[in-house]
């Protein structure tokens, strides 16, 4: 695991059978995750998605199969050494209440035997990365922080030793909707900069679409129903099951993933202008509010119902006939 900016994770025929349970929790799970990729495992409660993830840092030991990180079989590694190279964020956060924020973030570097100066610098760097002012927060205790701030510390703590791999188990699940959106946006920004290989478990499909490079939709026994990019899953759900998971408004969800850029057409329009960086769902919203008439785009051009539909790949040539 020398490569510090994301590693390949290969799971091959991984199964987990608990004693006294007739059915395996995970059965023959096979998946390859590319370096720097953020893979979302999505599925209903009890489908085995969390079990699958926890086998990667051996919080749960697989019953059979092999798991490799950068080609190295993790089952042959020392458990604690392995875990120090994998960032781990859980829903309940699990900060150590008796340690200050700085001490919490310093845990893994301390375990790895870094020097005091290096640790101090790293802690400050990590807190800044998650937008917490080190001079304010370093010496506070977890109970003095809000839920959202605690979750950021959880992410900083997981990243502190610069692990190539991160495992995240519904990290934003326990926060209120507004905080969750902000944390998601920040996390997206963060991942764009750090490029870790991340396995992210969620039951929230919206979250999966928003954050994932690829999404694995799972059903019972962690069976992969579909493993593809958010756009492809929305456009071509592989089965009834996946479609039901997407729920209503698949087109709108796809629009939310596309930039205004992709639907700009030439022409003039009146009304409030929209930025090129916005997504097409926002653009559609503006068009509807503009009584269905095209709206101008900042920097030239416009978007219309037709251009938005066309961007989704819908044949608009016969429109208006």
């Amino acid at each position, binding site marked *: 695991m020398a490569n510090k900016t994301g590693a390949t994770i290969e799971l091959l025929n991984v199964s987990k059978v608990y004693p006294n349970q007739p059915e395996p929790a995970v059965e023959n799970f096979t998946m390859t995750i590319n370096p720097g990729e953020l893979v979302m495992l999505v599925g209903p409660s009890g489908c085995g998605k969390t079990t699958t993830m926890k086998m990667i840092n051996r919080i749960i030991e697989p019953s059979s199969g092999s798991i490799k990180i950068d080609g190295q079989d993790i089952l042959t590694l020392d458990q604690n050494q392995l875990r*120090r190279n994998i960032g*781990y964020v859980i829903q309940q956060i699990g900060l150590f209440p008796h340690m200050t924020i700085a001490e919490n973030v310093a845990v893994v570097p301390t*375990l790895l035997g870094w020097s005091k100066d290096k640790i101090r610098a790293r802690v400050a760097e990590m807190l800044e990365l998650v937008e917490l002012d080190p001079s304010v927060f370093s010496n506070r*205790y977890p109970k003095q922080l809000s839920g959202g701030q605690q979750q950021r510390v*959880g992410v900083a703590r997981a990243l502190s030793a610069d692990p190539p791999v991160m495992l995240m188990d519904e990290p934003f699940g326990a926060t209120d909707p507004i905080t969750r959106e902000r944390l998601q946006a920040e996390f997206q920004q963060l991942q764009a900069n750090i490029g870790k290989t991340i396995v992210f478990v969620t039951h929230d499909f919206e979250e999966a679409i928003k954050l994932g490079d690829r999404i694995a939709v799972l059903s019972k026994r962690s069976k992969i129903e579909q493993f593809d990019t958010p756009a492809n899953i929305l456009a071509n759900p592989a089965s009834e099951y996946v479609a039901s998971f997407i729920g209503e408004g698949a087109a709108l969800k796809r629009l939310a993933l596309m930039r205004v850029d992709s639907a700009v057409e030439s022409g003039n329009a009146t009304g409030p202008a929209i930025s090129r960086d916005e997504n097409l769902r926002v653009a559609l919203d503006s068009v509807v509010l503009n009584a269905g008439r095209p709206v101008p785009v900042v920097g030239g051009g416009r978007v219309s119902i037709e251009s938005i539909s066309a961007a989704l790949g819908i044949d608009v040539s016969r429109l208006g006939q």
Partner: protein
Amino acid sequence: MGKYDLSLIWPFFLDKLDEIIELSTEHVLVVLISVLLATIFGVSLGLFAWDKPLLRSASIATAGVILTIPSMALLALMIPTFGLGWVPTLIALALYSLLPIVRNTVVGLREVPEAVMESARGMGMSPLRVLLSVQMPIAWPVILTGLRVATQLAIGIASIAAYVAGPGLGVYIFKGLSMLGAKNALNFALTGTVMIIIIALLFDALFILIKRLTTSRGIRG
């Protein structure tokens, strides 16, 4: 038994001051040593047994049974083996102190939230490291409360030690009871009792201080 004149206790107190100080010192010492013994054994047992259901229940139940043995009976039982004086007293007090210490150690360690335990393991801490640098500090206030209860228990029961010619202020209480009706009977009994209360209060204050000094600000109530 005639009326008792409370004003007589002060001259009695001054007259017996040296002896009172000696008995009080003995009382404190016997409590300190026995609670220390119970702490070493009880905390070790708790650290070892907290995650082993059978051993955990067995040790708490045993310590509980010991506590139900009347102190007189336990002390009397020890005379054939350990004779009279300090030794049977220390052993009996240590045994009585075990329950709150073992129980609070086990409860404290078990009360550490599962999320905290899982993230400690998930970050690559060895089981021993999790126990010493995460569980123990978080469980510490609960364990300390166990020690405090054990100490209070030992201070009270230590007064019975005089029954086996043991040390401490029990000597005065027993003396007072045995000479009931005599002029100084109540003086002896009352002095013994009041000194025991004072010792108990001082120990309690000491524990409050220790708790403040040794508990992380992050988990202080």
